[in-house]
């Protein structure tokens, strides 16, 4: 029987003290839904995911179980129970 609620494990690059968090979502949730939920609920990861001035997402890339997903595809990627999501920020070596 299909579960109504799924759990995904989420990390954001550079948010290590926050560690991996488990987020519960409806079973038809997309990656965009996850990002919106983290933002709207003022989850502790949200300050790593959004520009606090503009409110726009600061992340444009996520790995879902190590598979790269660009921001424009967040809405098209459905999440499954047990998925691991890693959001990557546009930071690089100086």
């Amino acid at each position, binding site marked *: 029987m299909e579960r109504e609620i799924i759990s995904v494990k989420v990390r954001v690059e550079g948010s290590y003290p926050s560690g991996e968090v488990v987020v519960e979502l409806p079973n038809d949730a997309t990656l965009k839904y996850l990002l919106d939920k983290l933002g709207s609920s003022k989850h502790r990861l949200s300050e790593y995911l959004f520009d*606090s001035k503009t409110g726009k997402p600061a992340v444009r890339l996520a790995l879902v179980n190590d598979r790269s997903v660009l921001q424009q595809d967040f809405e098209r990627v459905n999440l499954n129970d047990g998925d691991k999501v890693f959001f*990557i920020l546009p930071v690089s*070596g100086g």
Partner: protein
Amino acid sequence: MFKYGGYTGKILRVDLSAGTIEVEALAEEMVRDLIGGNGIAARYLYDTVPAGTDPLSPENALILMNGPVQGTRVPAVGGRTVVVTRSPLSGFFIDAYYGGHFGAELKFAGFDGMVITGRAEKPVMLVIEDGDARLVDASPYWGMKTFVFQKKLRSEENYNESEITCIGPAGENLSPMACIISGVHAAGRGGVGAVMGSKQLKAVVAKGSGGIRVPDMEALEDYCDSIVERMQANPATSKVLPTYGTPAIVAANNKLGLLGTRNYQVEVFPNADDIDGEALHNRAFVKSASCFSCPIGCAKLFRMEGEEYGPAESVGPEYETIWSYGSNLANSDLKSLIAADRFSDEMGLDTISAGSVIGMAIEAFEKGLITKADTGGIELKYGDPKLMMELLKQIAANKGFGKVLGAGTREFGRRFNAEELAMETKGLEIPAHSPRGYPGMAIGYATSNRGGSHQDGRPSAERGGAVDRKQKEGKGEYIVDVQRMTTLADCLVACRFTEGIFGLTTISEDYVDIMKHVTGMDYTVEELFDVADRVYALERAFNAREGATRKDDTLPHRVLNEPIPDGPAAGEFMEPAVFEKELDAYYQKRGWDLKTGLPTEETLRRLKLDDVASDLY
């Protein structure tokens, strides 16, 4: 008074052979056309150093230059300086940058920069103080490590408030991998420290009490406040870099399957968790430090107990060094990374090139291309931090096998018939951003005038998903715009961490605003494109005089022929046909000749480089 704000309008001309110092007026037209920093330095280098000049000869010029913003409150640019010279490692143009406070202090002392030629009879240092400059005997300091020297100098009454730019033993020993150190910051690439050592110049010391004149200080303050506000709203510059510094990105690059390991033979390091930003923060973090006027504070002091590799206390390692001394050597010993970073800074050694050539040598040893007869009896193997420390000592001493290594991966490849293992372009080792996984960055490496540097093309937009990293088509044209942005930032001598605020992929209106607020000059974005193109063409013309053509705009054999063997990015590489097509597009967008890879005469004249056009055509 100089016409434009931000500048002192004065350049020092130092001839160490003659022992003379002259003050030269900065030409207003040059400022308008090239802005400053790398732009003006490139012009001086082109005009001062004739083709074929031995980089370690007195005729080569060592140029230190400010841009207009140094000494102002504009965030993340205020204290930086660029060093420009002909590289003893590559033989081509090199520009190397360092943070800290020296750039601001030089401005306060009354100078925008200096052009140093000749060779002193004995070790000297150039002391600059409030509009005056003199040469001082540095014999007592010759041979000192950089930190010992700076501490010693600061303990003396005359210099206790000075900012110091110096070399360590690696520069004195003329290692082509020697860098220049200021505080704990390094102008790392291309052997600029060896050029300084060849001139018997131990240090440049600056102290000043002057100010910076800008058109409207209140307007500039308001503008700086707005930039700081944007930085504080952006998670990268308000959370990640202030907390972890650049080591933060180790984990994600490994997850992407793009963390060069064992000389880029593979790109997943199984022990990355032992050396990533979290590990460093949890096991070794002491405190943060900032450059002049920067609110980020990305510099991290790390310390671990025990000295089996030497003192394990250093501001660093940065991401690049975690790669070069870590995954690239299959070394997961965190303490050794901190100790090796400290050792390299004290000796004045470029960690990127040193780690790259050691990684290549180990691969060559494992494949039987070199033996103990070549290494001075040392067995080379990955995952051996004590071996790494020993080889770093030898490179810094520039003797024996260390001299062979210090000549760089290109020369090492030629010597041992191991060219296919060399991870370099134009003789400069490529750093820690995978050219197989980031095709735009790959074309950036290939076309960079300084060689294998991530500071002309940039990996940030591809790595962070702002552009699709897997798409190769269009990346030739894409990287022209990225290089325009980086070239302009180098004229301002701006830290790359501004790119997340000012724009990752091209020149934005922010640069127009900075120039207006600091200098009073009104540029359009299109005019700034021309400045960037002019500077890049000038650098390219310098290289052309040294024989550079399209054949030098290439990539390592591994990048063009060996797909990443496993991991999340398995199969990715730069197919030669795709690369050549994108290179054509790159040249076309720049107005460069497709056969020679050089700016056409028409392009040079459009950029007001008529003298260069006459030289090349």
